[in-house]
């Protein structure tokens, strides 16, 4: 009896310890999530203005614009930039990103995959580990980007992808990441990075008589890489916020589960204790009765 009591007490202790950890992790993730969301908000004006500038220029150009980064070729070689996190314990977050990447390859690039023409650039350690293990052609050049998340490092990755596209190393580039909706919801998706989708001319865009310096075509050529840098940066920031959101919800659930467990364990602990007391009492009473008898 006393053995069972001790066992239950030990389990309660260990669950309490785990719960302390999950609670702490939840708090940390909540704080990091706020910072990640701030970063998204901070970059928004820049991204919006950049887009606005682009549509301003495009609306002022007559005819089609030839940009090398928008060149449509038959897709033979594909690059996927897969953004996951460096750490686990974030629910199904990393698994879902990897799953999305795999299903996109299977659905859209099966033929290229067979020829071994699908490359994967990983941002984040978890996705790299998992995809390398499943035998994809991965590269870890930008794997550790989250260790020091700065615009510059993302810019380097975006520029490397653009250069590879221009040199014909890839005919299409897609980003697989998780879009941040709110702390509990992530949308796992793939986004076309290169070639650049056609920019629609916006009717009724500001038709001010702009002075363009240098010429519009050159300006667009300068503007495009900047927009792509921002696009990748946004994806990375979204992924970062998603990671912390996913971890926060996962840890919240874990703490709740621990509470449930503790409740049932406490009941069985009390029951065992009660049983021990009852037997002890019976023993004493019957002992006394035997003496008197």
């Amino acid at each position, binding site marked *: 009896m006393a053995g069972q009591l001790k066992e239950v007490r030990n389990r309660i202790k260990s669950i309490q310890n785990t719960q302390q950890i999950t609670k702490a992790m939840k708090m940390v993730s909540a704080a990091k999530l706020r910072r990640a969301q701030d970063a998204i908000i901070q970059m928004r004006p820049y991204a919006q203005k950049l887009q606005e500038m682009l549509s301003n220029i495009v609306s002022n150009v007559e005819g089609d614009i030839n940009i090398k980064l928008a060149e449509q070729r038959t897709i033979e070689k594909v690059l996927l930039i897969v953004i996951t996190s460096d750490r686990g314990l974030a629910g199904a977050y990393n698994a879902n990103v990897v799953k999305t990447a795999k299903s996109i390859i299977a659905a859209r690039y099966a033929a290229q995959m067979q020829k071994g023409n699908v490359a994967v650039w990983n941002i984040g350690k978890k996705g790299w580990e998992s995809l390398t293990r499943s035998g994809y052609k991965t590269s870890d050049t930008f794997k550790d980007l989250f260790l020091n998340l700065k*615009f510059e490092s993302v810019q380097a990755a975006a520029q490397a992808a653009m250069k590879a596209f221009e040199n014909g190393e890839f005919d299409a580039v897609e980003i697989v990441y998780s879009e941040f909706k709110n702390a509990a919801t992530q949308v796992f998706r793939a986004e076309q990075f290169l070639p650049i989708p056609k920019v629609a001319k916006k009717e009724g865009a500001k038709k001010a008589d702009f002075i363009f310096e*240098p010429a519009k075509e050159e300006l667009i050529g300068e503007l495009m890489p900047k927009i792509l840098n921002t696009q990748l940066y946004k994806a990375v920031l979204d992924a970062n916020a998603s990671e912390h959101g996913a971890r926060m919800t996962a840890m919240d659930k874990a703490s709740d589960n621990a509470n449930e467990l503790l409740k049932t364990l406490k009941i069985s602990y009390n029951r065992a204790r009660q049983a021990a007391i009852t037997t002890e009492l019976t023993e004493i009473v019957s002992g006394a009765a035997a003496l008197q008898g």
Partner: protein
Amino acid sequence: MTLEILTPEKKLYSGEVYGVQLPGINGLFEVLEKHAPLVSALAKGKLKVLKSRNEASSYSIESGFVEVLDNKATVLVEGAVALD
């Protein structure tokens, strides 16, 4: 006129200024009050905010763009650090 300096990481400057000196891709130029609408590419270099006729502060910037419209200049750069 109003000046805004934006980077992907944060809004660096926002306020009323007398003018601003920019490292254009074809050379240094200055934007003052009531400048005509302009879109220009900027090279890496030094940007000088003229807060008034004799008060200025400088930033070292990465490449980017400037748009001037309705007496408002918006500078978009990929990175900037305040000098001095």
